[in-house]
Structures are given as structure tokens and as C-alpha cells.
């Protein structure tokens, strides 16, 4: 497929903004699922950076894209295990609110 010369800065900016939104979500959301989702968002932002930098640098190549693939795979495994954990916890506690899972009440 064709290659469209999109400015690098714009792509990175997209990644940065997505990352920060994901960060904000991960830090503030109270539903465990949404926290996981926000983490996925941050991973996605990182993926964009990987793909963009793939063609920059001293040795332009496909390394970045391959790394993005690995990230996607690991993210898939992570979300699967994470959701399984969530289900187990939900069965025990009947909640998916992170504040209700805090055991360190002082």
C-alpha cells in the first residue's frame, strides 16, 4: 500500500495525548475493567510510537513494527489474565470497584 508522508510530530503528538488520557483513566477510574482498558490505551499509544519510530533513526527497518506486534500479543495475554482475575475477584467480592478491594485500611 502507499506510503503517506505524515509529519512525525503529529503522529507522536497523537501517541502522547492518548498515553496521557490512558494514564489519567488508569489513575482515577474506579471500575477495575476501565482501569484495565486505560492501561490498554497506554499500550496502544506506545505502539503508535513504535511504529512511527520504526522508519526513523540510523537503521530504518521493520524492528519497530515487529515490537508493536509483540506488544499486541503480550497485551492480549495480559487482558485475558487480567479479566480472568477480575472474574475470580468478582465472584468472591461481588464488586469490581477498586476501592472495595482495598485490604490495607488504616
Amino acid at each position, binding site marked *: *500500500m*502507499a*506510503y*503517506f*508522508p*505524515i*509529519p*512525525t*510530530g*503529529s503522529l507522536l503528538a*497523537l501517541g*502522547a*495525548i*492518548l498515553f*496521557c*488520557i490512558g*494514564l*489519567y*483513566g488508569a*489513575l*482515577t*477510574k474506579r*471500575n477495575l*475493567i*476501565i482501569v484495565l*482498558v486505560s492501561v490498554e*490505551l497506554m499500550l*496502544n499509544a506506545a*505502539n*503508535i510510537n513504535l*511504529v*512511527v519510530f*520504526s*522508519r*526513523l533513526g540510523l537503521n*530504518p*527497518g*521493520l524492528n519497530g*513494527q*515487529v515490537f*508493536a*506486534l*509483540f506488544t*499486541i*500479543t*503480550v*497485551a*492480549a*495475554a*495480559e487482558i*485475558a*489474565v487480567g*479479566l*480472568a482475575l*477480575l*472474574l475470580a475477584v*468478582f465472584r468472591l467480592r461481588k*464488586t*469490581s*470497584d477498586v476501592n472495595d478491594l482495598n485490604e490495607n485500611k488504616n
Partner: protein
Amino acid sequence: MLAYLNGGMVVFYLLSVCILACAVLLINLRKVIYMALALGGIFLGCAAVYFLVGAEFVGVAQLLVYAGAITILIMFAIMLTNHEAMEPALRWTWRQVAAAAAAVLLCAVLLWTIRSTVWPPSPADVDLNQGNSNPVAVGIMLFRDYAVPFELVSLLLIVGLVGAVILARERKEEDE
């Protein structure tokens, strides 16, 4: 300014707007199930961006794994737990403030850095795929240079799969 615009760039900016809109929605929506839908939008948009920058294989993988599998998985998870769950209304506790400040300031710092950096122009003449199509080139790389990590990742997936099954399994009485 307009002289620099080409078709791809226009598409990219539109896509960006969509992605960011979905992201903002994701943060602001209060019903969990809608959030999952917004996430699907983000994943789709990202896949399109990958296509735009010539990473077709990654884009397809994004479509299949993220937009296809993970979004659905998350929806299943929401349905299996309390699908009526609502995010509580935003209350500006110090943690909220700190998180927001951290996010915004980090974003500002990153953007300022990106902006103040002179990025080298993408070398248009270099063929990343070295004459092959992108999926073929990625495949060659995966199985030649990254064969061992690839196998390890497959192992990780298996372990993740089995682990997820064991964790999510309904416990019987005698197991406890």
C-alpha cells in the same frame, strides 16, 4: 500550509480527531458498557493510522486482536460482572487533582518536547520492506531475526490462556 497537505494527511487528522474524541468519551462516559464501545472506536482508529503509515500487518493485527478480540472480551467481562455498573460522578479529591495535573502536565511536557525537537524527515526513498510486501517482510523478520522471541511469546500466550481458564473457572466445593 495547505501546500503540505495531501490526502493521507487529511485522513490522518480526521482519524486523530475521531480517536481523541473516542478517548475523551471513554474518560467521560459513566456507564461501563459505553466505555467499552468507545474503546473499540479507539482501536479501530489506531488500526487505520497503522495502515496510513504503511504498517499494514500491524494494522491488521490491531484490527483482529484489539478491535476484534479484546473489545469483545472486555464486553463479555462487563456482562459477566455487574453490567449496570456506573462510574460515580467526578469529585475533585486531591487524588483526582493530582492525577489530572500529572496527566495534563506530562502531556504538556511531552508535546513541548515533541514540538521543540527537529525530527528528521522520513527517508522516503528507503524501502522498509526491501522489495517484499509488508506482511512478507514482517514475516521474514519474525521468523529469521526474532524466531526465539516469537516462540517465547507463543509460549506466553499458551500460559496466559491456561492461566485465564484456571482463574476464571467456577470453583467446585471440593476444591476449596
